[in-house]
């Protein structure tokens, strides 16, 4: 067997992609060994959807059915944001266990470990989105969307959550502690999704809060998803806002995270 003892100069883009996919495979393999994670990916979205539709739905929208039509897009975004911490948790674990040093001492693309984590997150997001669509359908939500709109919704979700996940990644690199990343999930994701128009219409809120909610990037993402899934609201402005926010968050936090990672 001929192996890699011969030096190579650098890694081409195709090789880098293959290595990132190997890393993603490993990341998803972890799910097989920790099936509880699959529960997180499946039960959590079902639970939230049931909870909000049947506990709050009647009070907010008059009936659970009417509420689901309003809230489904927001529930999808909220759930996706909850999942956006997986890459960071994985990376923090690798940093702590010394595995990241092994990867860095190997002749592979520098980007592979993190790119693999993010790729695996895309799979998680798509899986969870599919689960939610099925649950929504069972509960009576009928998306007025063709395959193109559904694909578009999935794409927006992936772009938005990938951008957003750079924040926990940055924290994970600094803290090197998966538990701190998890805590972060609650102290940031919970308030930022609840102070959006995901679950409650904007016009029911008091003035100052309304100003923030209107500005909140999660609101933009909610409206984009709503538009793509129901076709009743305009798509352009929220989509542009979502993409702009995604670009800005990526620019700031990906830079910070990469810098912190290189500084070790």
């Amino acid at each position, binding site marked *: *067997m001929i*192996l*890699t*003892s*011969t*030096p*190579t*100069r*650098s*890694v081409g883009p195709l*090789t880098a992609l293959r*290595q990132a996919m*190997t*890393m993603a*495979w*490993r990341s998803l*393999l*972890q799910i097989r*060994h*920790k099936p509880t994670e699959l529960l997180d990916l499946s039960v959590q979205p079902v639970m939230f959807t049931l909870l909000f539709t049947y506990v709050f739905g009647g009070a907010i929208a008059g009936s659970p059915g009417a509420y689901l039509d309003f809230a489904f897009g927001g529930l999808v975004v909220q759930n996706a944001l909850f999942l956006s911490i997986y890459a960071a948790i994985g990376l923090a674990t*690798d940093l702590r*266990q*010394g*595995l990241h*040093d*092994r*990867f*860095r*001492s*190997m*002749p*592979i693309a520098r980007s*592979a470990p993190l790119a693999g984590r993010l790729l695996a997150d895309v799979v998680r997001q798509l899986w969870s989105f599919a689960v939610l669509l099925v649950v929504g359908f069972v509960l009576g939500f009928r998306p007025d969307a063709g395959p193109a709109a559904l694909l578009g919704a999935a794409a927006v979700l992936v772009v938005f959550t990938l951008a957003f996940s750079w924040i926990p990644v940055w924290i994970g690199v600094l803290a090197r502690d998966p538990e701190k990343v998890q805590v972060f999930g609650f102290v940031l994701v919970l308030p930022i999704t609840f102070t959006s128009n995901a679950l409650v219409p904007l016009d029911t809120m008091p003035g100052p809060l309304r100003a923030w909610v209107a500005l909140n990037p999660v609101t933009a993402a909610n409206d984009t998803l709503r538009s793509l899934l129901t076709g009743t609201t305009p798509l352009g402005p929220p989509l542009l806002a979502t993409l702009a926010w995604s670009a800005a968050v990526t620019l700031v936090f990906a830079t910070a995270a990469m810098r912190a990672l290189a500084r070790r």
Partner: protein
Amino acid sequence: MDDNAIEAEGLVKQFRGNVGLAGIDLRVPAGSVLALLGPNGAGKTTAVRILGTLLRPDAGHARVGGLDVVARAHEVRGLIGLTGQYAGVDETLTGTENLVLVGRLLGLARRAARARAAELLAEFGLVDAATRPAATYSGGMRRRLDLAASLVGRPRVLFLDEPTTGLDPASRVELWAAVRGLVDGGTTVLLTTQYLEEADRLADDVVVLDRGRVVAAGTPDGLKASLGGSALELRPVLADRLDVVATTARDLARGEVTVVDGAVRATVSDPDVLPAVLRRLDEAGVHLAEVSLRRASLDEVFLSLVDTPSRVDPTPRTATRTGSPA
């Protein structure tokens, strides 16, 4: 290309004002084992991380396999295997999966990666544990899996950072055997250790680091001979002849002479003085109950070199630091 697998000149690294390395030179001939010996904070790990391309030196140069570790880091990574202080394995994955992951990353096809994994698991006695998550492994098994993961790419140069810290004696001996096997196969090994015994057993050359500096270098035997000298102990049958024995020892041995518990102890740099001492005592009619001449242990050499608070210990002879990473 020259015969040195690892070369370092004037490596300097500072961490927020603290000296990690204060300018060290290293030379490791291909196929040999170098032990970096030193207490915590001596700079051993920093040196390994620089040579393993994980850290850039502030000053100085290092080459592995003739390639600069900074300018040609990627190529260096193709030559080396690195086992850090913390086992670099994915605890959620099984032994096989861990090794297949490394193989796939190195460009092996699926089947080849699986074959190489099976080969290494067999070599390191992990076949029975191959399908269990690494989280269920004992400390020794995890270290062996870590070492196996470093070897998937058949590296020419292997870095082992405190490979046996925290292992029980049996696991330690197993790991030593594994390392010796690799060296027999032509691998160059640089290992760090706080254990003198480990350096003595495994290394062709030892470099003693203290506070980021090289305080001694040589073969284990050479270090013992040149720095420790030999300890001579003479015990006369009759305690009242101690004076005569001490005087004789003082005449012939150049080092310090002490009288302890009815015996005379002297440090001699040249073991050949023993016959002369015995002849002289025989002529003086002194009968000896006990004579011993032994080479200083590496412990004694180490303690005499490394400037640590433990040197203030009033009984340095009994205070061996080998077993307790402070």
